[in-house]
Structure formats: structure tokens, C-alpha cells
């Protein structure tokens, strides 16, 4: 079942810096929501607080009305929320295939129409799916993940998140360090994932391309929501351009 995510008055404190100051937002089921903003705006902190990797000082995070604020990251992952973290963070000592299997760690067997699909079956299906999306990973499946190039590592990180069969996919800068052509491919894949009825929360620097596939977007500045609105409207906004390139 697809998930709705709600953030209410989120505050995150990093000791000396306040990374998020009273942020509220809603991510509707089956939509792509983009979070834009310059560096240091708190985008990554926001996504990390949803996945439980960062502890929230005050405020609430609700997943389908159920509070998940400050839950353990693995418990959030078990609720079908998967993340592709910033900077790829591939597991260096493991092979490509093992990295993907780590993504499938919390999968459980599934009952559909009285038929049980075993965990193994699901893992294999998802593996085929991910290899379909990213054929290069299939070629390199036995290779050490650290020997991959930057773009391949990014694909691995996204593929790994997809291996958890997420209903809510959290993507932190998926286009980071990727050649434009590959970025295009990745955004195509995101569209497909959305078609399957899944929800995506995406943090990006690559504003235009993101807004083109997103339904709704928030722009953060110094830990606060500066604008929000439909992606279609924002794409024409000149202020956005300024935010990125300075006066």
C-alpha cells in the first residue's frame, strides 16, 4: 500500500548549528515531491530525519498517520521506506550483488490473492527488475563495489534502495556527479517508478530536470521552507534561478 508522509514543525539541532527550523510538509501518496535549495539549506538533514538517521529535536513525522519520529532507522526501513543516501555510500568491502542484497534485507514474504510469494522469490524478482533498470550493474555484479565509477555507484545506491521494494522512496541527490545523459535515464526510471503508484521524495540540486518530473516542490533556505508550490508553477519562477546563481 502506498504511503503518505507528513512532517509537522520539524526542528533538528546539530549541537552548534540548527539544521532545520520548524519545517512542515506533506508528501501525497503516489506523487513525486522535490526538495530544492542551495547547499546548507537542510535538504539532506530533512531526508535523514525521515529515514531515522538523524534525531529530531522537536516536531513530528507521520507515516500514514502513524508516528515514526525518532524510530530506529531499520524499523523505518521495515515500513517500506527506503533511502538512497547522499554521496552514494556504497558498502565498500562488498560486491555489487551483495550491496543490492543488503537493500533487500528487510523484505518479507508476501501474500497476494491467497498465494504466498516467498522472500527469495521476491528478492530474485526485484534483482531482475533492478538489473533491467541498470544493465551495467548486471555486468558488474561480481565486482567489488568500490571499483565502480561514480555514476555506477550512484546507480547502485538507487538500485539498492529499490531492492527493498519501497512504497516511499527517499532519494538524496541522485544526479550527484553524473553525466547529463545518465541523469536523464535516471529521471526516466523515476517516472516509471511513479507509474507503479509509489511515492518519491527527492532532494536535488538539479532544479529544472527535477521540477519536470515532480508534482510538488518545496524550496528550503537555511532550514526553513522558503517557497512551496506546484512544480509546474515553480519551473517558471525567476527567483529560483537567482537562488542558485546569486544576484
Amino acid at each position, binding site marked *: 500500500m502506498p504511503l503518505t508522509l507528513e512532517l509537522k514543525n520539524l526542528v533538528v539541532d546539530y549541537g552548534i548549528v540548527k539544521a532545520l527550523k520548524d519545517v512542515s510538509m506533506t508528501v501525497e501518496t503516489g506523487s513525486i515531491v522535490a526538495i530544492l535549495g542551495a547547499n546548507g539549506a537542510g535538504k539532506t538533514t530533512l531526508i535523514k530525519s525521515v529515514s*531515522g538517521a538523524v534525531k529530531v529535536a522537536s516536531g513530528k513525522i507521520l507515516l500514514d498517520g502513524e508516528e515514526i519520529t525518532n524510530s530506529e532507522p531499520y524499523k523505518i526501513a521495515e515500513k517500506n521506506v527506503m533511502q538512497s543516501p547522499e554521496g552514494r555510500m556504497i558498502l565498500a568491502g562488498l560486491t555489487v550483488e551483495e550491496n543490492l542484497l543488503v537493500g533487500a534485507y528487510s523484505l518479507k514474504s508476501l501474500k497476494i490473492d491467497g498465494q504466498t510469494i516467498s522472500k527469495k522469490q521476491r528478492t530474485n524478482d526485484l534483482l531482475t527488475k533492478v538489473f533491467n533498470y541498470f544493465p551495467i550493474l548486471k555486468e558488474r555484479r561480481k565486482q567489488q563495489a568500490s571499483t565502480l565509477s561514480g555514476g555506477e555507484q550512484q546507480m547502485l545506491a538507487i538500485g539498492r534502495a529499490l531492492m527493498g521494494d519501497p512504497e516511499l522512496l527517499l532519494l538524496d541527490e541522485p544526479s550527484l556527479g553524473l553525466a547529463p545523459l545518465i541523469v536523464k535515464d535516471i529521471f526516466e526510471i523515476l517516472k516509471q517508478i511513479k507509474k507503479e503508484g509509489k511515492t518519491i521524495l527527492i532532494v536535488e540540486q538539479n532544479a529544472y530536470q527535477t521540477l519536470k518530473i515532480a508534482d510538488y516542490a518545496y524550496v528550503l533556505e537555511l532550514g526553513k521552507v522558503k517557497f512551496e508550490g506546484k512544480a509546474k508553477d515553480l519551473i517558471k519562477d525567476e527567483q529560483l534561478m537567482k537562488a542558485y546563481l546569486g544576484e
Partner: protein
Amino acid sequence: MYIIELIINSILQSGPLALATFAIVLIFRTSFTTNFAQGMIGTVAAFITTYILMPSPDITGNVPSPTFLTYLIAISVGIIVSFIISMLVDIVIFRNSKYITPVGKQIVTMGIVLIITGLIPFFFGISDRSLPRIGANLEGTFIDTILLSGVEGLRDIGIFVKYHMVLGFLISFIIIGTLFIMLKYTRWGLGVRATASNENVASMMGINTRFITAMSWAIAGGLGALAAILISSNKGTFGNVTVYFMVAIQVQAFFAAILGGFSTFHGPIIGIILLTFFKNLFTSYLNPWGNTVLYLFVLLIVLIKPLGLFGKKIAKKV
């Protein structure tokens, strides 16, 4: 011939030591610290085992052979107690201290060494205790026949090995083999390796890293216990279980881990085999400088290869 005998005996001898080494690496990889209490927790297990086997120490030095079943029970109880103690260290101490550094963790394990040192005489008395050799009561069983024929076969070609050493090696070999297979092919193993590589990402991917870490401590405790029991029973002399008998073993295990490199699981195991071989070689020719030369030799290697013989450098961003 002599050198072959030395090699074979060194490999046999390094079996139980490999258990201790593996335990150290397991904890280093999942908790990024070195557990100095490993040996002491193992010592507790050895004491418990002797206590179950012989409630009162035999002063004459005649160690009565227990039955196979009592031996098995005694060992199991010892291992389980160590398993629990070690797990509690992680759950009770490390999980409840927020800003603990790797050196802080080291210091805590040193504190545990002190506590156990103080408590052992309280529970087990002040005199040294003894563990009989394992396998002394296997006579007539299937394993016994195979082992005996093996040992005798080697003797026939002029290589002398000891029966109980072979048994100790086999037990260690089976356990380490199982652990390697588990690490490579089971869900738990994947969890451990993912946690060892990057704990944050592992937990994001749905791995309960706290459970993995606690289990690693527990398993390390159990391995240390088995190592202590096997090593003391291999000695076979009266009073082979003393408060500090595992310290030297632990030093060997640590140096093996440094020699092989902490970044892999197999490196330290090869390290302990090499170390045992050279230790036997040096101590028979260079006494009393044997150990000194050996450890200086390891340091020299580490000076040239700081990450150990099999260590891999993982470039990280500042």
C-alpha cells in the same frame, strides 16, 4: 622432515588460537574497538568448566577423566556464560554511553579485565585449577577411530602429532569454517559485513545493527571461551587454568590481527598460522629472545605494510 612436523604442529596449534583471533576481528569490525576483556571472559568460562568437572581440586595431581557427556555439558555452560557476559558488555555499557570514543571503549574493556581479575578468586578460590584433556574419553567411538588412525598414520611416516591437538584443531576448524560460510552466505553474515562496512547505511537498509553488534559481542565471547577451554586442556598439566593464562594468548591473537590486517576476516587467520609457526621456530632456537624477536619481526612488517599483510586501504573523504 623436522620442518614438516613443525609446520603441521604449528597449524594444529593455531586452531584454537584462530578462534580467539577471529573473535577480536569480529568485534573490531562491528564496534571499531579492540576488546581487551576477551581473554578474561574466556578465562571465566575455563574456570566454570573446571568447576563443573571437579568441584574440589585434586591435590595429588591425578586428574580424573570425566565422561564425555559431563565434559560436553561443562564446556557448554562455560561458553554460554561467556556468551552472555560479552553480550551484556555491549548492551549494558556501550549502548548506554552516548559519546563514547573507540579509546573510551578500549578503556571500558580494560576495566572489565580488572573486575574479572578481582572476582575470579572470590568465586573459584585462590588456587589454580585444572582442565583434563579433551578426547580422553572418546575411546571406542567413531571419531576416535578416525583420529587415531590419522595420528598413527602420520607417526608411521615420522611425523609426531598429538591426539588431543588434532581434536582441538578439528573443533576449531569446523567452527571457523562454519562462521566463514555463515559470513559469506547467510542473512546474518550479510548483516555483519554490511555493518562492518558502514553502520549508518546498513541501518538505513533495514539491518538492525544493534542486534548485529550485540550478537557479534556474544559470539566473540563464546569463541573466546572455547579458545580458552581448548588451550588450557591442550596443556594438560596440573594447574593449567590460572587467572592470567589467557593474557599471552590474547597478545598473540592481537599481533596476528595486526600482522594479517584488521580490514579482512581471513587475513588475521592466516596471520595466526604464520605467527604460531614462527613462534615455534624462534622459541626453539632463540630462547629467551624468541618472543621478542617474533614481535619485533611483526612490528617490522607492519612498519613496511601499515595495514597488515592482507589489509586493504579504503579511501575515505575528509
